[in-house]
Structures are given as structure tokens and as C-alpha cells.
């Protein structure tokens, strides 16, 4: 296989594999670019948590357990283990925010009563897109999140590769050089104008 054909095929197969990521990033960017429309439609406030269920937690935590240990144990018992944040409120309650892409949840554990309140974030389509767009994974400590972060890096590498291989493929087609140079120069000029002025 010649280098040219290898570049063309890599350009294509990489795109066929990564198109769901690119489609998601394109749609979510459009949604964020027009956030005001969604805010107008849904009202000004942030999405609210809605009660889902309440129960009494009868598990026992290890002596001197840290917050992450407690949150991990509670989430595992609810079959909700995954990327989350946790903090302790001034009244002693432990609040876990489970960063689910589709249905984020807030779980509040009150040690005094052993009460567990599970709430889910009300659905907003634009918020789902934004969560997808902003999701990072390396710091969560969960394998699936780490793999997701690797795929995001692959998508970033893919974008850079499409740019460079696209230039290569264009240059190989002599007949497209004049019009291509015009399109390329127009794009670079406009981009530079924006960077210099706004």
C-alpha cells in the first residue's frame, strides 16, 4: 500500500469509527451556541432535582472512613456506582452528586437518622448535550470514564489528522489546487482577522 493510499484509508476509517463523537460534539456545540433559546423555553433557573425515592441505609462504614469511601459504598449499594462528587454539609449530611450523562442524581445521606434521599435532575435535552460535551474522565478513578477520556483524546488526534491528511489529499489533486488555495486562504484570513480584532 502506497503512503498516499494509507493516508486516504486512515482518514476514512478513522472518521467512520469516530463519527458518533463528532456528531455529538457538533450538535452539542450548536445547542450551546444557542443556549439562550433553551433558557427562554425552560425558564431562567437551573434544572431542579426531583425526589425519586427515600430509604433507610443500614450499611456500616469502616472506622474513620473518608468521604470517598462512604460515597462509594452508598452508591454501590444503590447500584449507582460511577463518577461522582461528594461533600459533607454543615449539618453533617453527606451529599453525593452522581455525574450520570443521562440522569444525574443527588443522594443525601443523613447519619443521625440513616436516611437516604435520592433525587434525579429534571430532564433538559440541551443539558444532556452539554454534559456529553463537557465530560472528562481521567480524574474520576472509574475505568469506563478513563476509557471515555482516551476516546476523547483519540477524537482530538483524529481532528488533527483529518486537517493534515486533508491538506495532503488536496495537494495531490492538482486540478483542485487554485480553488482550494482560495478557500484555504479565505478561511485562514478570516480566522486571523477574528483573532486580531475580537
Amino acid at each position: 500500500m502506497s503512503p498516499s493510499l494509507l493516508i486516504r484509508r486512515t482518514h476514512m476509517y478513522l472518521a467512520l469509527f469516530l463519527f458518533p463523537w463528532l456528531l455529538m460534539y457538533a450538535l452539542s456545540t450548536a445547542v450551546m451556541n444557542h443556549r439562550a433559546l433553551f433558557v427562554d423555553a425552560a425558564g431562567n433557573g437551573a434544572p431542579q432535582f426531583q425526589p425519586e425515592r427515600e430509604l433507610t441505609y443500614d450499611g456500616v462504614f469502616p472506622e474513620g472512613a473518608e468521604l470517598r469511601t462512604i460515597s462509594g459504598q452508598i452508591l454501590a449499594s444503590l447500584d449507582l456506582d460511577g463518577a461522582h462528587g461528594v461533600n459533607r454539609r454543615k449539618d453533617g449530611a453527606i451529599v453525593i452528586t452522581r455525574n450520570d450523562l443521562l440522569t444525574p442524581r443527588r443522594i443525601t445521606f443523613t447519619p443521625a437518622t440513616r436516611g437516604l434521599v435520592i433525587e434525579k435532575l429534571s430532564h433538559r435535552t440541551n443539558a444532556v448535550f452539554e454534559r456529553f460535551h463537557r465530560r472528562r474522565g481521567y480524574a474520576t478513578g472509574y475505568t469506563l470514564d478513563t476509557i471515555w477520556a482516551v476516546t476523547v483524546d483519540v477524537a482530538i488526534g483524529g481532528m488533527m489528522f483529518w486537517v493534515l491528511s486533508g491538506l495532503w489529499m488536496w495537494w495531490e489533486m492538482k486540478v483542485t489546487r487554485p480553488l482550494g488555495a482560495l478557500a484555504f486562504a479565505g478561511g485562514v484570513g478570516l480566522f486571523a482577522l477574528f483573532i486580531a480584532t475580537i
Partner: protein
Amino acid sequence: MTFTHFNRRLHLYLGLALLPWLFMYGISSIPFAHNQYFERRDAAKRLPLWTLRSTHTVDAAIPDDPHQLRAFGASLLREAGITADTYGAYRQTPTQVNVYVYSFRNSTQLKYFADQKRLTVEDRRFRWDQFLTGMHGRGGFEQESLFVRSWSVIVDLVCLAIVLWIASGLYMWWGLPGSRRLGWLAIGAGVISFVIFTLGL
């Protein structure tokens, strides 16, 4: 010109015209994806991010209506003698409003403390990672300047272009019968992985 030919040219010329944006979105995703690394690197320099430029005495009532915040932010900018095309005003607490003024290269923040009748102006130190993430995150149609908003039109165009690259790319792939088997494998692997992430994350 046949549709196949038109499709190939659209894929190519759209790519060449929007190449700076695609490159920018790619490279600027790195500091987003590896935020902690860049933060650690900057923290090691032990330099303050914001430098106080000036302090003003201002007596103004913070409006209750969130829709009035932008106009309030503009009045704070006038008090500080700052001309800005691009800014946003945000209520931090019932007695504090912050106004962020930004261009691709510079950022300034105004903090107004109503209970102290004090307005401070601070400039942000230039950081390459924030320069890139600033470009990446820029968008929306809230600014008054038509030229500033035209950047957001290009952002929409890039989104549309990505959809068109996907559609035209799929069409070109289908025109290569020898690549179909491996292509189906790549599509299947991508779609299945994406669905697993969607349900599992």
C-alpha cells in the same frame, strides 16, 4: 457535474475553508481534556493569575431582574472607563456582581461589592492554555456587536459542516465497494462503543 463529483468537492472545499476552526477546536480540546496537567504546570510558576489595575468608589443598586444585569454591567464598565465589545455580567451573591470583559488575547474582570460601594478592576495574566480554551468556548449571540456575533455564525457553520462531512464521507465510503466490509466494522465498533458510553457513564 455529477452528484458524486459535487459531494467530493463540497467535502474538500468546506474542509479547506473551515480548516483553521477544525484545527483550533482540535488543539484547544487538549487543555480541556488535560486540565489538571495545565493547572499544575501553571501553579508551579507561582505567579498570580489576576493583577489589580484599579479600585473605584461606586454607589449603585444591583437590579433584581436578571435581564437588567447586562445593562448594569455596562454601567460598571463606564464607571471604570473601560470600552468593551464583549462582556458578560454575573451575580455572584446578593451584594456582588462580576463583569468579565474578554477578547481572544486578554481578559479583565470587574468586581462590584454593593455593600462596600467598591468596584475593582483586575487583568488576567496571559496563558496559552486559556488562550486556546477561550477560543474553544467562545460563542453565543448575547453581544451587541455584529462582528463579534459573526464569530458565532461561523461556529454554527462549523457544526453544520461537521454534519455535512459525516454525510458526504459516508456517501464517498459507500462508493468504494472494496472498503465496505472494513468500513462497516469501523462504524459498528464506533457506534457500539458510543452507546456503551452513553448508557454507562
